[in-house]
């Protein structure tokens, strides 16, 4: 470990050395006086560089009567700042591109530029944190854009409201009960300039952010640039944040809706562990085994063999607080949805009663090895993951993921199945196709 001390502002340096084992993502860590956490990951095999800034604010930080703000705010971050009237143009001029996304837990922004132009990316990102233009004109345009996004993805699509309904059923207390787009279109339509400004001041501050710089750059040249552009932005002292915890579900929950959709569908949501809980790796593997790909249990048995579903998948919401394992299936035309649901439960019970085979575990191990190798190819993915794991406590946890997944056993998967795949832990959305009326 090398101690820092080159910079007057008390930068802390920590270097993680390369190990000979599985390729490791190396990085250097530092901390600005205003609380901004900074990581630099050098990669000289690429001509590009990435700036990734993650803000610890998401839909879970909203109030129930004013939802959709974190996501609306993500859009407003592109409205221009004092020295950078057009964020996108400044980056395009530097040969770069950018994007952002919002989840229930966080909001992430990234820029990709030719490595020679890394300072432009740092400049534009710092300027909007320090001097964002929030005014009624920019709010009106983004309000309209987000409203169209809401309609395009959640209203103008068959089953578009499924996530709204499923979340509201599974979560009674925790803010995960509404989706990131917002609980209702009216929340976005009624958002006031004052509301939006207050949101910015509260959450968009250096001490609530993690900055990663990655790619064809050198840490000795990057850190002074970070200090130049971010160093003078005042931090504020954030008080710790807690979220109302979701009480344990004790009874099966169910909702049936009927709409103009082409087939019946079933959505089942089960409460699972949080991201940092050791059971997370078990439940991730359980979801893969259940319903990821055509050789998965549910696909083979319910789609191919029994021909009850046209398609069925299982996946995690992947949230930081306790999230959901979701199973989503479209019932095949002509099949009674009750029969399809019963057959589904038969398979879920099978996973509780018998351990999965060694072959199935071996398959998951290969898939994880493949997926981790693929993930490493992508510079911006590496940058985001470093930020995410630093948010969770230590960026180096990223390098421990492979080992954690490979420690999962058939027995530990069976154990988590018995904790999770229970009716009293399940919320079911029974989505029925409108039958033609008889006139």
């Amino acid at each position, binding site marked *: 470990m090398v101690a820092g001390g080159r910079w007057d502002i008390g930068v802390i340096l920590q270097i993680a050395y390369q190990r000979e084992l599985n390729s490791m993502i190396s990085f250097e860590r530092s901390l600005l006086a205003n609380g901004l956490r900074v990581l630099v990951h050098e990669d000289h095999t690429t001509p590009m560089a990435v700036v990734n800034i993650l803000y610890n604010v998401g839909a879970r930080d909203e109030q129930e009567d004013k939802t959709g703000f974190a996501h609306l705010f993500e859009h407003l971050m592109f409205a221009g700042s004092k020295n950078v009237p057009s964020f996108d143009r400044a980056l395009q001029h530097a040969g770069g591109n950018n994007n952002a996304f919002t989840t229930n837990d966080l909001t992430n922004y990234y820029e990709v530029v030719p490595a020679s132009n890394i300072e432009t990316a740092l*400049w534009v990102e710092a300027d909007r944190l320090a001097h964002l233009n929030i005014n009624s004109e920019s709010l009106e345009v983004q309000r309209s854009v987000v409203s169209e996004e809401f309609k395009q993805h959640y209203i103008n699509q068959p089953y578009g409201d499924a996530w709204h309904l499923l979340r509201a059923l599974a979560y009674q207390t925790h803010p995960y009960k509404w989706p990131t787009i917002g609980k209702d279109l009216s929340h976005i339509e009624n958002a006031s300039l004052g509301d939006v400004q207050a949101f910015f001041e509260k959450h968009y501050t250096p001490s609530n952010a993690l900055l990663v710089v990655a790619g064809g750059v050198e840490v000795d040249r990057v850190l002074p640039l970070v200090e130049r552009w971010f160093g003078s932005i005042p931090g504020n002292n954030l008080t710790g944040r807690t979220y109302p915890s979701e009480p344990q579900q004790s009874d099966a929950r169910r909702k049936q809706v009927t709409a103009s959709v082409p087939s019946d569908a079933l959505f089942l949501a089960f409460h699972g562990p949080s991201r940092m809980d050791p059971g997370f790796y078990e439940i991730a593997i359980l979801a893969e085994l259940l319903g990821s790909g055509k050789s998965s249990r549910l696909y083979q048995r319910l789609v191919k063999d029994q021909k009850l579903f046209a398609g069925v998948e299982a996946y995690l919401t992947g949230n930081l607080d306790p999230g959901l394992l979701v199973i989503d299936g479209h019932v095949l035309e002509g099949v009674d949805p009750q029969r399809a649901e019963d057959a589904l439960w038969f398979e879920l019970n099978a996973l509780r009663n018998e351990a999965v085979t060694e072959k199935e575990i071996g398959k998951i191990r290969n898939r994880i090895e493949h997926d981790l*190798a693929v993930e490493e*190819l992508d510079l911006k993915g590496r940058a985001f993951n470093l930020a995410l794991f630093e948010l969770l406590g230590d960026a180096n946890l990223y390098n421990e993921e492979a080992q954690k997944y490979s420690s999962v056993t058939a027995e530990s998967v069976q154990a988590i199945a018995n904790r999770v795949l229970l009716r009293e832990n399940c919320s079911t959305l029974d989505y029925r196709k409108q039958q033609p009326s008889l006139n």
Partner: protein
Amino acid sequence: METNPVIAPKTSLPDTIALPIPEQIALGNGIPVWVSSGVSQPLIRLSLMLEAGKWFEPKQEVSHLTARLLKSGTSKKTAAQIEEEVEYLGASLSVGHGGDFAEIAVFALTKHLEQMLVLVSELLIDASFPERELQHERNIRKQRLQLNREKTNYLAKVGFKETLFGSQHPYGYPRSEQSLDSVSRADLSSFHQQRYTPQGAKLFVTGQVDEQALKLIEQYLGGVGAEGTGQNGMQWHLPEYRSQERFISKPGSVQSAIRMGRFMPMPSHADHSGLRALNIVLGGYFGSRLMTNLRENKGYTYGVYSHIAHNRHQAYLNIATDVGQQYAEDAVQQIRFELDRLRNELVSESELELVRNYTLGVILSTTDGAFKSGQVVKDLIMSGRDIQAFDDHVNTIKTITPQRLKALAEQYLDPNDMTTVVAGSTSEA
């Protein structure tokens, strides 16, 4: 320039942006191979392109179902066994089809390459298309078709191609229950035998590729398909282009989907490179004329993009967006307005510089690593161009003038030449 010149950091772009030249070899059966190697992760990708797209099918949906069902069984293995085999390795094996070609794509850890090659060669020689799999797939496709018909963007996409090419043409026919029902197992076997052959095939290999990998590829793919007859292609008549307008009704939609475009010259044509530059200005990036107008200024849409699509025999401009239903009529007018603006006014030097820098940055990132550069190689070769076209295109981007852009717009972007298709809930007539 919108940025404050006093404090904006200086920017620069590399003087040369070069595409790593692939290694070129040929397999024993004549299939040409392009190899882009040099990644540190132990991953390899193969893309085998076959002359088995819609252009070559004897009746509608044969190309599609042959591709979908290639993995559905051999004389020795069931679909479940094949799927299990691939998924056990954590690999992917996908078979797709398009207007002209079918593609078998393999993506795996290098240590699993041989097993994947064994499987691919079995599918090329011994795919059996079991009847029960065909029935099952047919039902799934019909159900998917019903679902897709609820979506305005699907209706517009399909309607646009049908309007451009005609409802019987391989590039234009819409999917239907009848055409899915009329395909028999014998049709699939016969098409597979005729068209999944080395004749006209091309192979692209990217990733961590060494001598051993190439030996395995020769071993398993170099002798395959010697029996295929590979009949000469069908002769399709390309329709005479004429501009049309079409409205597809979808009652109750809150959004309308718009597609606008026309036939364009092929990628090998001298005007293509300049047209791509023009397309970027029009609708090829987030700061484009269309995006600025429809999204940033008016908030009509979440996104609007244009691109020049191409099949082997015809290229076309495709402007696409989903807008709030009440905005559809004006959105069409705004698109026409932007087309006219490019024809009547020179693009300013500063806007052109922005587009130039942005585009060169994008091109630079497409050369970043063997997987990305290999994809560029594949696109060039499959569109009838050569590696040199990459340098020519970079040069065009660096040197094109506002005058040239205007001349191209005058010739190719007349709104009255465009075909417009709108799918939504009210008539825009």
